[in-house]
């Protein structure tokens, strides 16, 4: 024992570097070379030393870059549509192609680079993280971050078991991590009649609330959404979920409301371009129809940009355009460096406009009839708001920057006091 300890001490540097290549879990091995045995022993010692220094948790070597970002956890029964949702919303997979998705075998972690950096964790449905001791999940690593737990229920299936499991989950999460929002997606409701949808929603709500109040939990942050990947409802539901995670949302909304009032817009949305999730809108009542047309508008713009804007032009082309009649660099010939678009509907001449705010965000607004002629003025107003939005995100960003920039170990979870 003593001799191995000496060896371990001598080779600890090597062992530390080999962490990633070493098998982390003991598994049935027919033959282990003495050297390998030694290495694993060294690793074990090393690990224990780190644990002692760092508290009860092992820093997960696979996800150092995902620390400190809001996290969306997708959970639910198997085949309830979790992976389909994340593919459709975050990877722009056409809904019809989700038929070919394989079932998820382990936790699928996606990092989403957008105006805020999100993580989306897609859990396999067959594993119950609370009941199965074989998978000893590190609860703090999962629920430690601020975020939302999205529970997906297949409305076209018998959902009693799903509701029961959801209840168990809510109880666990509520006790230890009350800051997590719980969002229930009653999913696959396309094809169901409106009455039936509402019936299901009512039934699920009652079952969960009864159970919670039996356990003495009142006013738990549980929200319900009716969703389907075959229409916009899934995006709208995600929008609501994400809006709750945005710091100072009220400020954003006030800016948009102001813009709507000055320019006589019917409705304005601030979209995350990649996911078509809207992160803020003005204060007028929301309606699905205007969200749909605005989000499709974003889609059209993305498609056009891909086809005509994603390949480099030749120098020759540029030289000609900057040549004599114009004699200006191309950048000076345009009014706005970001994407700018306008569209007029045939009925009542109602225009819709879109303006890119930065790489991730776009402002889309539905205008009133007759305002197309006043586009120059509107553009000026929009410019001001866009400037304000940019500042807003400048201000809110550094806070995130500090967290992500900090020493990975110091900010594992809010429970750990930050290292001085």
């Amino acid at each position, binding site marked *: 024992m003593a001799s191995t300890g000496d060896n371990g001490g001598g080779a600890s540097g090597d062992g530390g570097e080999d962490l990633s290549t070493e098998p982390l879990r003991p598994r049935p091995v027919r033959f282990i070379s003495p050297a390998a045995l030694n290495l694993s022993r060294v690793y074990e010692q090393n690990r224990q030393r780190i644990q002692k220094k760092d508290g009860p948790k092992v820093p997960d070597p696979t996800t150092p870059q995902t620390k400190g970002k809001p996290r969306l956890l997708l959970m639910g029964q198997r085949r309830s549509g979790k992976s389909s949702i994340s593919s459709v919303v975050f990877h722009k997979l056409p809904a019809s192609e989700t038929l070919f998705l394989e079932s998820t075998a382990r936790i699928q972690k996606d990092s989403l680079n957008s105006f805020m950096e999100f993580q989306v964790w897609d859990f396999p449905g067959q594993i119950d993280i609370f009941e199965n001791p074989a998978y000893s999940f590190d609860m703090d690593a999962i629920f430690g971050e601020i975020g939302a737990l999205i529970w997906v229920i297949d409305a076209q299936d018998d959902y009693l078991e799903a509701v029961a499991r959801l209840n168990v989950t809510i109880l666990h999460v509520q006790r230890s991590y009350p800051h997590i929002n719980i969002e229930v997606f009653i999913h696959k409701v396309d094809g169901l009649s409106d009455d039936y949808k509402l019936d299901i929603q009512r039934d699920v709500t009652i079952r969960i609330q009864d159970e919670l109040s039996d356990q003495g939990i009142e006013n738990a942050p549980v929200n319900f959404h009716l969703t389907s990947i075959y229409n916009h409802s899934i995006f709208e539901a995600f929008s609501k979920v994400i809006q709750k995670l945005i710091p100072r949302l009220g400020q954003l909304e006030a800016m948009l409301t102001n813009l709507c009032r000055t320019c006589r817009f019917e409705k304005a949305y601030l979209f995350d371009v990649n996911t078509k999730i809207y992160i803020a809108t003005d204060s007028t009542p929301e309606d699905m129809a205007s969200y*749909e*047309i605005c989000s499709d508008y974003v889609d059209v713009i993305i498609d056009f940009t891909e086809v005509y*804007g994603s*390949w480099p032009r030749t120098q020759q*082309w540029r030289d000609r355009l900057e040549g004599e009649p114009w004699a200006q660099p*191309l950048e000076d010939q345009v009014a*706005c460096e970001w994407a*700018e678009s306008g569209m007029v509907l*045939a009925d009542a001449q109602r225009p819709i406009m879109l303006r890119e705010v930065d790489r991730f965000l776009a402002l889309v607004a539905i205008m009133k009839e007759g305002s197309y002629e006043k586009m120059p003025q509107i553009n000026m107003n929009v410019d001001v708001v866009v400037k304000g939005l940019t500042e807003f995100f400048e201000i809110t960003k550094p806070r995130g920057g500090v967290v992500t920039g900090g020493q990975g170990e110091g900010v594992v979870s809010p429970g750990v006091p930050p290292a001085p």
Partner: protein
Amino acid sequence: MSDLETTTGSGGPAGVTDGSIGGGPTTQTQLKKVKKQKVLLMGKSGSGKSSMRSIIFSNYLARDTRRLGATIDIDLSHVKFLGNLTLNLWDCGGQEAFMENYLSQQRAHVFSNVGVLIYVFDIESRDVERDLATYVNIISALVQYSREAQVFVLIHKMDLIPPQMREEVFVQRVALVRKKTAEAVAIVRKGFLSQSQSQSQQQSQQQQQQQQSGQISPTATTTSAPPPEDLEIDMQLFATSIWDQSLYKAWASIIHDLVPNLAVIETQLASLGVAIDADEILLFERTSFLVVSKWTSREGDNNPYGDRFERMSNILKSWKHTCSKFTGTPRNAEQFSEFEYKMGSQFSMFVTKFTTNTYILVCMPPGEARFNSAKLNVAAARPWFKFLDGPPAGAAAAAGGGGGGGPGQNPYGAVAGSYYQGGEHGMGHPDS
């Protein structure tokens, strides 16, 4: 302007010949000369013929096609395309009883004067052998009656094949179909040779045979010359699905060759493109948003997206659906009149209503001044493309009545005439 007059002039005589069909009794030879575009849509029952027709021409959404029932017998529709081109679309119900009927009793009626045959294969079909056997029969009938016809084979429902296997499955199926087509042609030629040997003996009996069975009567009505040795069917194959843009690609090629005055459109588009310094111009038909014609600058040719034309059709058409949902107006109605997009210093583009029946998409280099002048120039170019809207409008604008006006008014009547003439063969049509 001289261009314009010549085109409307050429539209007139075409109208006159149309009128003569509808008017008096015509001989078979006269019928053949006529370029009334008869488009046959065939394939096994349930393969998706009516679905694709509804999507392309009736603005159905892909998921709405579930509502469609089986087509009974032949569903005739006259699709007005670009105002002056009427597609005589024969959507032939694919159930076996109907198929047999087309091949026997109605053989001459269905397969003569065909401009285009669109044959749809269902990739999911269980009984491929049988599908191909039917296909061979159809092709031989077609070669017999209208050997000039173009054939488009659509391998449909490709969305049911996993994406990584699509290419492979399609290539296999193409090889199979080409082989079968060659077989079909060979069969017809053999049949013809043996028939022509015994033709002198049969000459007297032909009248009787014609009444007994439609299958042999063709020898009397069609040309007597056997198919030439090197007869090759003008055939194109496409992998399609109603769930993506592949359908638009196939139909744009089908339509492309049928559009009248295509050369004129192309030269005028090119001169417009050069004048406004564009990178690409696409001309869409108003309701179907199929690409009628396109022009691309040398720079635009570097665009790596070879499928961009059908993509644009797809994008704009689904955009039109979105608008109709928002405004609550019918799908076939016009939905947007103007769409402009300036992508910083990368490119600018706009889509705008052009002539009555067309939309134009212009993609061009960035620059505010360039963009605004291009929009004005496109508006100014409108009169030069008026002929796209068909003889009635063209005749009124340029020729001012005269010869063009009369026949131009009733192209539809002429179509109906030829259709009723077909009815004499003893076939019940659903009304058009």
